[in-house]
């Protein structure tokens, strides 16, 4: 990012900048319901409902007594609350399918009712992943749809075999050729990311050979998984703005970033995604 260069240069001739903790009363917008759900095609929906907190908080109260409804077009799909890995989710009774709109509503005592709606994207066409043992390159083919603007999220995992199939376990840090995302500065810095989010602006309608550089050499005899996730425009806006906010939190050169939300009456995101996972082993 530009920030890195700027701060590098500024710090060089300003010797040092100073940091101090300050006590400032920041106004709080009040408690609101927060709904988060990324809806994966052909999967049940896991809806997380929490409450917003005063600015600066980093732990959030779950609204376990909230009333949550999920609608497939206008037809309600029942949800039940389950605790998974120590966190509570409202889980749909059945899987959701491509071609429908899905709406989530939530209410809780003394809080404004919220709702959000989104559709589901088509599955991305990904294939032929490859890499060399000891190498730092992973390549795969991605066929983009012509005539549409598509949005993607890329991740690479180290996988372990469970139940006879490779299951993603550890996300790997990788970086892109800047021709996809214009992050020129990443090319000389040592920045690697577990998540890369782009639009198809540079390759719409084409089959592209995506190359990613991993931070560490590829292991022998272990499965790797290429995960390419198609995103709806809603999901893309949310993830991209969330990434931007996170990347610039200490950047004095830009205005604080707003994170997109499609939740009416509250905060959070309800958005459709569709992941393709392709396992392979490095040669």
């Amino acid at each position, binding site marked *: 990012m530009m920030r890195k260069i700027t701060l590098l240069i500024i710090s060089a001739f300003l010797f040092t900048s100073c940091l101090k903790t300050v006590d*400032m009363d920041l106004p709080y917008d009040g408690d609101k319901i927060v709904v988060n759900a990324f809806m994966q095609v052909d999967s049940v929906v896991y809806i997380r409902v929490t409450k917003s907190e005063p600015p600066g908080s980093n732990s959030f109260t779950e609204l376990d007594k909230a009333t949550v409804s999920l609608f497939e077009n206008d037809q309600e799909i029942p949800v039940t609350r389950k605790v998974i890995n120590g966190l509570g989710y409202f889980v749909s009774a059945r899987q959701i399918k491509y071609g429908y709109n899905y709406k989530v509503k939530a209410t809780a005592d003394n809080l404004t009712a919220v709702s959000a709606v989104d559709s589901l994207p088509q599955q991305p066409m990904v294939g032929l992943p490859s890499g060399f043992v000891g190498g730092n390159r992973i390549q795969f083919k991605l066929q983009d749809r012509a005539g549409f603007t598509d949005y993607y999220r890329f991740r690479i995992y180290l996988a372990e075999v469970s139940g006879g199939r490779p299951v993603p376990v550890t996300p790997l840090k990788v970086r892109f050729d800047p021709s996809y995302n214009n992050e020129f500065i990443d090319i000389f810095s040592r920045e690697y990311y577990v998540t890369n989010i782009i639009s198809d602006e540079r390759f719409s309608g084409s089959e592209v050979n995506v190359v990613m550089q991993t931070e560490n050499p590829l292991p022998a005899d272990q499965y790797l998984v290429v995960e390419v996730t198609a995103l709806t425009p809603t999901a893309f806006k949310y993830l991209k703005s969330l990434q931007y906010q996170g990347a610039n939190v200490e950047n*004095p050169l830009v205005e604080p970033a707003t994170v997109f939300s499609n939740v009416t009456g509250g905060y959070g995101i309800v958005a459709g995604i569709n992941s393709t996972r392709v396992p392979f082993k490095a040669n």
Partner: protein
Amino acid sequence: MKPLARKLLLGMLLLYCPLQSWAWNWRTRVSVSLKKQPLHEVCRHLEKEYGILFAYSRDIVKMSQPVDIDVKNVPLKRVMEMLFEENGVEYKKIGEQIVLTVKKKEQRTINGYIEDGRTGERLIGATIYSPVLQVGTVTNQYGFYSITTKKDTLTLIVTYLGYDPLVLRLEDKMSRQIKVQLTPSNMLKQVEVSESTPKLQDQTQMSRVSLPMVSVKAMPKLLGEADVMRAMMSMPGVSGGREGASGLNVRGGSPDQNLVLLDGTPVYNPSHAFGIFSVFNPDMVKNVELYKGAFPARYGGRLSSVADISLKDGDMRKYHGEVSLGILSAKFMVEGPIWKNKTSFVVTGRRSLFDMYLSDLADQELELGEKGEFFAYFYDVNAKINHIFSSRDRLFISAYGGQDNMKVLKDIDKFDADGVKSFNEYLNFRLGWGNQIYSIRWNHIFNPRLFSNVTTSFSQFFFLTDYRYRYESYKVPDRDNLFGKYYSRSQNGSLKMDFDYRPHPDHAVRFGLHSTYHIFEPGITQFADDGEDRPKTDTVYNKQKPGGLELSLYGEDDWRIRDSLHLNLGVHISAFMIFPKTYVSVQPRLGFRYMLPRNWAVKLSYTNMVQYIHLLTNNNTYLPTDLWVPVTEKVKPMTSNQVAIGLAKTSKDQQYEVSLEGYYKSLNNVIEYEEQVSNFQSASKNWDEKVIRGSGSSYGMELLVQKKTGRTQGSVAYTLSRSNRSFPTINNGRVFPYKYDRLHDVEFTIMHKFKKNWELAANWEFSSGVPLTMPSASYEPGTGASPYDPVVDPGNGQVDLVKDRNTLRMAEQHRLDVSVSYNWQRKLFAYMINLSVYNAYNQMNPFYYYYAHNEGTGKRELTQLTLIPVLPSLTFSMRF
């Protein structure tokens, strides 16, 4: 006949004779009504009706011109004035008749240049006036003056700050061209061409700040570097960005609304090092004028300010030079004659030195390898030649080139955990931006009252970054060869013709014609992939070059209606053509001055300005990655209206100046990005769909008190102001404070020259906190589709709700800067050593606030970043 009757008759006879002889005088009331009659016919009529005899020679005095006259019971003197004043006839009562002669020309025009007697450097703003008639004028931007006075004026006085006043004795009564040479006053050890203007009450111009270069150089320095733009910020109504950043904000305007002119040529990005220093080498600058409002009609194309910077012309008589070395930079200046008293040159160069301190840090941070290189520096070079062809013609050729550059060359072998070579990585990354400016100007004096300047110029700003990246594994057949490039560029070429015309002592007229062609390349990317195992690709995005032609025509008249009443009337008419759209604007400019008792002048102004180019920016500061774009059909030109009222006075001895001004400014069609974008964005063809249009306003009061002469000089500047913006989708359409809104801003500056070698300067600044946007809530982020998937941190453990903009304020800021200089002379060389301390009492002024994660507590804490703590610097310079 009775004795009484006889006496009466005698008395009447006695009275009759003188009444016949002196039957009329100047107070005699006459009535005449004639239409389209020759002058001699009117005279004949007066002769017949009132016995007024006229004597004149028909061969010499032209009496055939037709006149209309319709008066009833009007004194004869007045009738004579009406008949003869306009017709070039002089009248005089001699005995019983009025003798008519041809009116002699009573005025004459003295014109020429005023210059430094030692170097030949033309002096801008020098005053030349007649003490008897109390009329005068000032030299224009090229040192030219033209003064029309009564023919019997025998003495003129020429003054300029830092120079001995000169009494100019006129030996004859003819119009003539006179070159005036002033001698620098002895008090100043190092003679600098400094700026001076006539008394404030004698100028109709208001909202103008003039910066003497002597003061700019004497002010405390940041990192040893005197800076013109930073000096401007100490003036009321002018502020910088947040601490350390030098983007100028004038009366609530944004930096892109400033027209910065270098010898008349616009400079797109006047800063180095991300805005910390300006591109103007102070050794090259002769004169700086900043207009905050009341813009003269000759300026146009930006809304908020005009910074008109004139460079030195070069010494016509002797060679001079200066070298200096500071913490930040090294620089030199050389000037002298090429052909004595005919042609001179001046060259300056400057290079920053901070990569010397930065390379070790970069090596550590970026792991460059043994063959690696790191450069990060800026440089600028100025060159100027001026040649005198004749007393009427003079030519200037100037060039400026400056760049900020960074290069990272990395060539490194990576090893695996067993210490075996894994792969080689080669990277050549470059980042740079800069301005290039060239101009040729021709001064020509058509006649004593008409001066012209023709300028042809080219200006460009570019930003460029590119990389070459190669990867080759030692273990496996895997290689990569990538190339990427991103650049943006704004260029313009212009032809300007400006005229300075003094038709009458009461009128100073300027008019001209400007044409400028703009070319924009707003963010073009090019990528190539030469990986051997993949098909080669070479792709260019957003390759477009929109261009627009800007034409403008202006005229202004500085009109002395009475000694106490002056009016400046002007109009700037411009058109911007960008296919298929043409925008036309008529921008009135009005100035008014009225003298109050005790030499206080009250001034009023109204200006309308239009700006046809926008700057796309997503930042808190003014960055070189910002993109200049022309107006489109959707995004219309920005416009502003500004009214100002003020009081001003310069004391009789010219030691003190006081000005107090109030203003109100409205802005329309200002733009903002609708969503955040990355730094290397491209202004694609539909960029205008990604911005929102809004409006703004600012108002305030500015007080400036200056002591301008003597060993101790200084100023107090106070600004009380408000600046707002409103956009339909920001803060729900409500008006919100602009990011550089400061309610109070106070600056104290003092400089003292001790008798022996020492100089002391200090500057103290206080300002209210600028607006601040902070989160108003935090909440849990969405992570993944399934809780059974591996946990991938989305980058944030929370989402901060950033809703309304600029609803809070940073803490107030204050800072003291001090500087001590020691000057000494040894033979031909003059030496100076300067110690400056920026932020002398180490005030922790806030630059930025954010939530930092505390590893110990696991909580987030609101943290303040202070960019510049106490910062001393040392500069050494040597002149010959």
